[in-house]
């Protein structure tokens, strides 16, 4: 595990220092992100300060950022899971001309150099559309929401809900709050199944957390029928981790939305380097198949988040298929 901080080899000595904070160490998605970061740092010989982790706590993030500031960071990469409470820190960094790349979340206020993320509202909409089509516009769907206080979760929930209401009024949605906890999701799903044995679909907002508990429960209830057979519950997940791909291949779930951990890492570093070098970007399409849009407080590069189904699950370009270890 060591070595995260040793990217600063001799080649890196002259490069501007980049401070990187990880939002948490205990989730599959963020660990993949961290692995990609480390890989990219050493392959590109970047000069980074020791990587810190804020354990999903905004106050720790701010403390860590302060340390970066005091140890000479020229650009900072962070993933503030609380998009409000980072505001004053961003202002402070802007005052000191330290550009910030925000990964995965879009700060509500305060200047950012670039937001690198996929569009979470698009996740919700894509999931809604997929389920709506598979179920032909009618049926019952359970939705595992994340934490109500998480922006990403909220964006997905809102987009999913409004899309369902607009396009598939025949589908009844059971939103279940889970605080991103697999056991809570499992128990609420169990209750929902007792009440609605004819449940047709499930949308889980984070495969890393919900996938195994859900599969285990359905298995136990004898409801884990392969896709295409009668009684199959249509499941769409979100994240794009290898386990989800396995489940798609086995027909246990139908689809997932690949949240590109590799691209998050790659472009976070790319923009951090560019920022430190003083480059600027304009809204519009990019050279890597995404679009930069203008935000009130900066720019956002909306990375593509492909829908993965049985049809394209073996695509080598999907990060979930190339993750190491």
């Amino acid at each position, binding site marked *: *595990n060591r070595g995260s901080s040793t990217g600063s080899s001799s080649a890196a000595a002259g490069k501007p220092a980049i401070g990187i904070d990880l939002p*948490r*160490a*205990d*989730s*599959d998605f*963020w*660990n993949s992100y*961290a692995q990609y970061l480390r890989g990219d740092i050493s392959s590109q010989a970047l000069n980074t300060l020791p990587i810190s982790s804020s354990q999903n706590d905004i106050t720790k993030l701010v403390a860590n950022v302060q340390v970066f500031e005091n140890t000479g960071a020229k650009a900072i990469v962070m993933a503030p899971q609380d998009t409000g409470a980072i505001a004053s820190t961003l202002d402070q960094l802007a005052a000191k001309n330290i550009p910030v790349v925000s990964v995965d979340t879009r700060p509500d206020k305060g200047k950012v150099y670039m937001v690198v993320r996929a569009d979470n509202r698009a996740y919700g909409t894509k999931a809604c559309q997929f389920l709506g089509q598979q179920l032909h516009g009618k049926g019952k769907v359970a939705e595992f*929401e994340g934490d*109500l206080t998480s922006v990403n979760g909220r964006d997905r929930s809102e987009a999913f809900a409004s899309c369902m209401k607009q396009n598939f009024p025949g589908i009844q949605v*059971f*939103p*279940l*709050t889970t605080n991103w*906890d*697999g*056991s809570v999701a*499992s*128990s*609420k799903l*169990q*209750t*929902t*199944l*007792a*009440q*609605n*044995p004819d449940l047709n679909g499930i949308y889980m907002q984070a495969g*890393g*957390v919900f996938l*195994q*508990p859900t*599969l*285990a429960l359905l*298995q*136990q209830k004898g409801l884990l029928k392969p896709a295409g057979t009668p009684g199959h519950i249509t499941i769409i997940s979100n994240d794009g981790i*290898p*386990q989800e791909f396995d489940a798609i291949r086995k027909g246990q779930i139908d689809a997932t939305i690949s949240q590109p951990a590799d691209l998050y890492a790659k472009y976070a570093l790319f923009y951090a380097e560019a920022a430190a070098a003083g480059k600027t970007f304009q809204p519009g399409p990019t050279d890597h198949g995404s679009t930069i849009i203008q935000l009130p407080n900066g720019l956002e590069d909306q990375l593509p988040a492909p829908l993965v189904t049985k049809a394209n699950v073996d695509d080598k370009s999907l990060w979930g298929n190339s993750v190491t*270890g």
Partner: protein
Amino acid sequence: MAATTDAGSTASGAAAPSAATATAAAPTGRRIDLARYRDLSLVPVLLVLGVIGFIVSPAFLTSANLLGVAQQSTELSLLVLGEALILITGKMDLSLESTIGVGPVVAMWLVLPSHGGRFQGLGLLPTWTAIPLCLLTGALIGAVNGFLILKLRLNGFIVTLGGLTMLRGLQVALSQGQSIVEVPNSFLYLGETSWLGAPAAVWICLVLFAVGGAALAWLRHGRALYAIGGNAEAARTAGIRVDRITWSVLVVGSVLAAFAGVLYTGHYGSISADQGSGWIFQVFAATVIGGVSLNGGKGTLFGALTGVLTLQLVVNVMTLAGVPPLWNQFLNGAIIIVALVISRYASGEKQE
């Protein structure tokens, strides 16, 4: 805490027997000592919840739903079992919430091969040793806690709070923050299988609670827990080996937590890196509303079990009722407080 005397309690004080006048002793026998029934104080709450559930949804009283609630309670109830024993002995262990996660991870780390899977273990030991290793890890954690609390005389609350953080950190470090999915079948079996139409975990929990309850009620060493928690000095003068028994209880509590980890893994199909995270509040809530005193020496396992069921039924009924997500947590907290009030008046006893 403060035993405020008002007119009512004085009355009973004076009516209480004096040794000098033998006849005056009778009243004690006749008056109902409500405090003895504090373990049943949640029963009315459970009934109320049952009625609400029945009104809210016809699905509530189906066996699928009730068995579901029972199964969802299993892991929590094992932690509660352990914590109840520890609290009765007058100690506290917050680190149980990490033991449920770190036990399985250490076992996997020791048995899973060092290449092949996504998770790299050491592959030191054969796969069948996974469950014993997990329990052993639990025992070790309990023993270390006991050492810190009983030998170094550190404050138990804070030691185990530090332990909670450290063990959770160890779990993250060993598992590299990933869920471990390729778990050996032997390890999954107990948590996922069913016996006689009900999940095996439910049977196991019932047996463990029955065994624990019986030991507390009828065995000398079980009764010693109450004596130690009630007045450790008195227990010592009565010849009870206070430190040795307390240590054993801490070990048993941690072993139960590690075993809860086995059931959890089977139940949810993988070992997630934040398994059990945040549970300790629930554990305390269940144990204490079930009538176990934080000051030691009071409470029963039956009471603690009703505490778990209350918490789980609240979630179940709220899900069935389709409470709007935004108001979910608020209602949850409000119901706990209402349950406390009901149980306080049902037991007629001040909670200290």
